[in-house]
């Protein structure tokens, strides 16, 4: 066991750091540091910079634009990005549909879609969940009838993140009724510009518009837009859900947030002294740090197995549950740090930052909305209850 980076890894770390220092746009950095909502153009700008450098898709094979990095290098990259307050690239193209096409897509599909995903020229959305199919995804009702040269698509998807930005959506739809609900599901690529697609915003607890309900009305999806074979969508859906789950713990991001919490507590006053010197508050930070330290080591152990060629297995469930718990605990402490300044709310400031003197500490206004919004992380991506069910079954054999 050796926790130290090798000289090559160390050199790589410095290279990444230097690149981020000179290339990551200051205005985006500032927004991320404060918690201001990001715009589509922010994501596109940064992704294009990474694309030019060739660092946009660490998990892809090199021939399709990947980096050829080892798991440790990927982790180093993630660490440096978090430390530099980089925005997290949108995952629907790079981490979801991209790898699916690489694994199950035809050569034509790869040629057609992958380059635009890398360049962020085409935005994708994930059409899995439905109003009546959340945790029980396989009970989905959206129908696609095979009409020879096309599928006729009808139904609705919900909680669609970035549905209002997306050019394309990958959709799980029922192409036949079978004895088991996991059978008869197909994986389709649908053009969001089709006139039969409509998008209704869903406003979340923080007052922001990120998710949507998407309706499909008599859409003709070209037959070649199926990924894999008809009726094999469930296998693909599961592949996607398990793929690239090592980032799921978000350890580097949480470390950065703890740093931010400490800086804030250093500035806030409690009985005439910095809040950071308050034993009670210190203890709460320490408690999260203990959990995070364990999580980081667990994550590294998983990475080490991956490097040795072993599959991550259900480790991703553990990383997801513990990772989200840590993140949520930090959002709560950030909110607690500013005491009464958690109260002020202003949607315009959430969107564009302060245009006038801030009320209280500059970042305070974002903290309660973020705490409320971050509750979503234990709900989506397979809820934490579902992850525990998976571990109970797959790991413990219960």
């Amino acid at each position: 066991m050796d926790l130290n980076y090798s000289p090559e890894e160390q050199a790589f770390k410095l290279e990444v750091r230097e690149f981020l220092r000179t290339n990551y746009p200051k205005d985006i950095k500032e927004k991320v540091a404060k918690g201001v909502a990001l715009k589509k153009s922010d994501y596109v700008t940064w992704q294009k910079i990474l694309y030019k450098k060739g660092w946009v898709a660490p998990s892809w094979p090199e021939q399709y634009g990947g980096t050829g990095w080892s798991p440790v290098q990927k982790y180093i990259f993630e660490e440096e990005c978090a430390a530099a307050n980089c925005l997290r690239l949108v995952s629907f193209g790079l981490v979801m549909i991209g790898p699916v096409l690489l694994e199950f897509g035809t050569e034509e599909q790869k040629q057609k879609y992958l380059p635009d995903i890398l360049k962020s020229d085409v935005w994708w959305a994930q059409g899995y969940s439905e109003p009546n199919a959340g945790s029980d995804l396989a009970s989905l009702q959206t129908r696609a009838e095979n009409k020879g040269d096309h599928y006729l698509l009808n139904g609705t998807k919900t909680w669609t993140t970035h549905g209002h930005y997306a050019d394309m959506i990958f959709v799980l739809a029922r192409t036949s009724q079978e004895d088991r609900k996991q059978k008869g599901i197909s994986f389709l690529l649908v053009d969001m510009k089709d006139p039969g697609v409509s998008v209704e915003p869903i406003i979340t607890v923080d007052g922001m518009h990120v998710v949507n309900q998407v309706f499909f009305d008599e859409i003709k999806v070209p037959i070649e837009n199926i990924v894999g074979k008809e009726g094999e969508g469930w296998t693909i859906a599961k592949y996607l859900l398990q793929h690239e789950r090592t980032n799921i713990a978000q350890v580097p991001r949480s470390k950065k947030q703890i740093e931010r919490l400490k800086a804030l507590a250093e500035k806030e006053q409690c009985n005439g002294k910095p809040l950071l010197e308050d034993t009670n508050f210190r203890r709460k930070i320490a408690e999260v740090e203990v959990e995070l330290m364990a999580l980081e080591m667990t994550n590294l152990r998983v990475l080490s197995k991956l490097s040795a060629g072993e599959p991550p297995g259900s480790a991703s469930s553990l990383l997801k549950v513990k990772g989200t718990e840590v993140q949520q605990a930090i959002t709560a402490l950030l909110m607690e740090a500013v005491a009464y300044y958690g109260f002020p709310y202003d949607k315009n400031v959430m969107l564009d930052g302060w245009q006038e003197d801030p009320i209280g500490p500059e970042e305070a206004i974002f903290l309660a909305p973020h705490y409320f919004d971050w509750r979503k992380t234990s709900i989506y991506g397979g809820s934490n209850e579902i992850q525990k069910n998976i571990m109970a079954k797959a790991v413990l054999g219960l």
Partner: protein
Amino acid sequence: MNLEFSEEMNMLQDMLNKFLHNEYSFEQRQTLSRQGIGYSEDNWQQFAEMGLLGVPFDEQYGGFGFGQAGLIVVMEAIGKGLIVEPYLASIVLAGQLVQQAGSEAQKRTLLEPLIGGGLKLAFAYVERQSRYNLADVVCKAVKRGNQFCIRGSKSVVFNAETADKIIVCVRTSGESISQAGISLFIVDKGSKGLSTRDYETVDGLRASEVHFDGVMVDESSLIGELDNAYDAIQTVIDSASAAICAEGVGVITQLRDKTVEYLKTRKQFGQPLSRFQVLQHRCVDMFMHEEQMRSLAYLAAIKVTSDDASESAKSVSSAKVYLADARTIVAEQAAQLHGGIGVTDELDVAHYVKRLTMLNTLFGDRDFHLQRLCSL
């Protein structure tokens, strides 16, 4: 011993429940919260007619004399309906401060219009650096002839926007963070040198930053003794803390009720979610917390007026610690168990969650009250 409500309290409760049912749907609340002043002046006048504004005040000043017991009945309803009208700011805080510390003349001139709905007050006690320490007062008043000149800023003053007068605690002598040397003044909102910056709060209410830039007030504006206001402030903040514990009971009741109902109707994996034992246990945890919270809120209501200061403080801080724990046991779980719709703006659940969370911050968080309990 009798732990049941009196006949009068039951009538008050019935009246409030009827009002919530007939005139205060969640949609109406949201509309009010997001428009204009953030609440309805008509509702306020109706509260006056219903007698709600006189609940905690002595009969000799036109109140009902229901005291803290009356307050818990009103505040529980405020929690249930997520009521946005400025009851806490104007009646529980500022009004009670007048009753607690004001002169006979002040009580006569202020309480009657307050109870009648013609006058609204706010109480400015938080400062940028003060956190929850009521003695950490920097905003100053300096004597000039037979007047005082107030200079400084107050933070997160609830409903200052529509208050006619603001009661402000200021330092008139002594070191910052000393309990001695704090005084209360009542200041007209329109006074020269007084300005406010008004905003919405994350839980759908209104508050302001209030700036005093050399505001001149007469000696007659002093409430209570010069330099000696700390005890009165502490007393009223404790009463208000006990009151928001009752508000919390109302919010918790709603969240438990709505979550249980949701689990019974929402089906996944071919069965109602309520069949999953892990979710049942979370609901039971909510229920147990609700009952214990109710007990502590009632206890605080009884003890807060006790002559034994440490008895009073103990009951209030205990209830407040429990209210803080409701964030993880009730608010976070209610959102979690609702799944995606639990984090949407459209559903009432998220708004109850927000209020319950912010009640932890109001008048001191969990750490603050645990620390206070340790020091008693």
